[in-house]
C-alpha cells in the first residue's frame, strides 16, 4: 500500500515537472513519430524484396517491431532517468539520504523519476501492433491478448533486471561505464526475432541475457502457437532475474556501507 502511494506521488511529480514545459512535449511528440515511421519504412523496403525474414512475414515483423517499441517505451518512461541517477549516486556516494529512510532503496532508485512525455511512444507502438495484426488473417481472442499483455510485462521486467544488474557492477567497479553501455547496446538486439540466433548464441541470449525471450515470445503469442513449456520457462526466468536484482543490490549495498 505504502509503495503504491509512493508510486502515485512519483507519477504526479513527474507530470508536474514535465508539463510545465509545453514546447518540450511538442518536440518529443514529433521526434517519436518521425523516428518510428522511419523504422517501419525501413523494414517495408526490406520486405519489398523478401517475403519472410527467418520465417517471419511482413505483418508478423510489424508486430515484433511494435512490441519491441512498447517494451522500449516502458523502459524509457519508467526507468531510464532512474538509471542515470543511480549511476551518479553509486559513484558519488550519494545513497546515504535514501539508506537512512524506512523505505526500499532499490524501489526508490528504480522508480522515482518518470519520463511522462514518453507516453507518445506507447501510442505509436500500439498502433504499429494493431496495424500488424490487421494485416494477418488471424482472429485474436481475449485470452491471447491477456497472455500477450502478461508477457509484455515479463519482457519489461526482464529488460529492467538486465539493465539494473549492469548498473550494480558500479558497486565493485567504479569505472564500469563500458559494461553498462554494452548492456544498453545489447538491449537493442531484442528487436530481432530469436530465430536469428543459433548454437551458443541461442543459449546465451535465452538464458543468460534473455533478450531472445523478451520480445519474441509476446509477439509469437498473437500469431503462432507458443508451447506451454516456453511460456512457463519465460515466466520463471523473469521471476528469477527479479529476485537476483534484490540479492545483488543488497550485496552491493553491503559493499557500499563498508567503505
Amino acid at each position, binding site marked *: 500500500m*505504502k509503495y503504491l*502511494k*509512493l508510486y502515485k*506521488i512519483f507519477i504526479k*511529480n513527474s507530470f*508536474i*515537472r514535465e508539463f510545465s514545459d509545453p514546447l518540450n512535449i511538442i518536440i518529443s511528440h514529433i521526434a517519436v513519430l518521425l523516428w518510428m515511421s522511419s523504422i517501419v519504412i525501413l523494414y517495408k523496403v526490406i520486405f519489398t524484396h523478401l517475403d519472410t525474414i527467418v520465417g517471419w512475414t511482413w505483418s508478423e515483423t510489424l508486430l515484433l517491431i511494435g512490441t519491441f517499441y512498447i517494451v522500449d517505451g516502458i523502459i524509457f518512461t519508467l526507468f531510464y532517468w532512474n538509471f542515470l541517477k543511480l549511476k551518479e549516486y553509486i559513484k558519488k556516494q550519494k545513497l*546515504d*539520504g535514501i*539508506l*537512512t*529512510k*524506512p*523505505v526500499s532503496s532499490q524501489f526508490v532508485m528504480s522508480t522515482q523519476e518518470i519520463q511522462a512525455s514518453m507516453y507518445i511512444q506507447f501510442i505509436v507502438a500500439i498502433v504499429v501492433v494493431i496495424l500488424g495484426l490487421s494485416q494477418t488473417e488471424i482472429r485474436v481472442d481475449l485470452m491471447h491478448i491477456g497472455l500477450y499483455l502478461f508477457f509484455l510485462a515479463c519482457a519489461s521486467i526482464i529488460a529492467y533486471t538486465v539493465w539494473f544488474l549492469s548498473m550494480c557492477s558500479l558497486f565493485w567497479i567504479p569505472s564500469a561505464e563500458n559494461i553498462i553501455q554494452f548492456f544498453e547496446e545489447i538491449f537493442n538486439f531484442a528487436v530481432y526475432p530469436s530465430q536469428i540466433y543459433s548454437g551458443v548464441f541461442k543459449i546465451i541470449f535465452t538464458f543468460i541475457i534473455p533478450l531472445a525471450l523478451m520480445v519474441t515470445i509476446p509477439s509469437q503469442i498473437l500469431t503462432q502457437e507458443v508451447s506451454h513449456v516456453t511460456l512457463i520457462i519465460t515466466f520463471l526466468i523473469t521471476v528469477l532475474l527479479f529476485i537476483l536484482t534484490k540479492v545483488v543490490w543488497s550485496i552491493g549495498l*553491503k559493499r557500499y*556501507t*563498508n*567503505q
Partner: protein
Amino acid sequence: MNPIIDVKHLSKYYKQHKKEPGLKGSIKALFKRKYKTIKAVDNISFTINEGEMVGFIGPNGAGKTTTLKVLSGLLYPTSGMATVLGYTPHRRQSEYQKQFSLVMGQKNQLWWDLPALESFILNKEIYEVPQEQYDKTVNELTELLDVKEVLKVQVRKLSLGQRMKCELIAALLHSPKVLFLDEPTIGLDVVMQKKIREFFKEYNRRFKTTVILTSHYMDDVKELCKRIIMINKGKIVYDGDLKEIIKKYASNKYITLVFLKEVNQSDLKKFGKVMEFEPLKATLSVARKNIPQVASDVLKKLPVDDLDISEAKLDDIIRQLFEIKK
C-alpha cells in the same frame, strides 16, 4: 534510566591502498598492493541520555562524520558496539529509521525542480506520518522557521538559507526522537548560522529531542550544547561540560594588532602574552575578562592601525588537552 545512545569501544578502520607515485609505482601496484589502515574511529565510548544536546567537535578528519554514519546505520563498525534507542543501527530496521533523522549540511535531499511541499508529502508517506500529526508538525516548523511563503516555490529558486530551512522541515516532520546534525551550518552566512542555531535551541527545548551535533565551528557548539565530546584522530580527547573547557583551556582570547609604525616586543609584554611578533604585526593572548580593558589600553598607548579579537582556536585547545593527557 537507559541511555538513548550507547557506544562502547567503537572502532572503524579503513584499508587505504598505498601507491608509489609515477608509472613505475602504478605497475608495481598491479602485482603487489600495499595497504595502510586508517583508523577513522579508534576505540571510543560514550553514552547520551534523553533530551541531551551534545556537541561533537574536532578538526576535519577527526572521526565526527564517521561516528554519525555508524549511528545512522550507514557504516558497519569494525569492532565494538553502538546502540541507539536499543536498536543496532547497521541493521537499518524501519522501526529505528522512523525514529531518527540525519541532517548533513550542504547535502540536499529535497527534489530540485519541485516545490518543497511536494518533498514533504513524499517524506510523510515514507515515514508513514498520520495526516493530523503531519499538518500540525509542518505548521509548527514553518512558523518557527518563518518560511510560509516559500513552501510552494520550486526549491531551485530558493536562496541557500530558505533551502536549508526547508531541508530541516523535511528532516523533522516525522518528529524524530534522535537527531544527528552533521555540520548543519557549514557554508551559511553568519546571519543565517545564527538563525539556524536559534531554531535548534528552540526545537530541542520544545521537543526534548536527543541531539548530536558535529561541527568544527566552536560557535555552533557554544550556543547549543552544554556537553561536548572532543574528538581528534579518531580518539575522544574530552567528554564533559563545555563551560569547564572554556574556563580551563579557552580562558584566553587573542588580540591581533597591525601597527602604523614599528613597535618593540618589550612594549607589548605588559598587555599580554606575545604569541606572534613581526615589526608591524603582533598577536597577544589575553585573559577573557581583561579583553575590553587591554583593547582600549593598546589603542590608546600604541600606534595601532587595525585591531582584531578572536577566539582561541580549536586546534590550540585540542593540542593543550593532548599535552595534558600525556
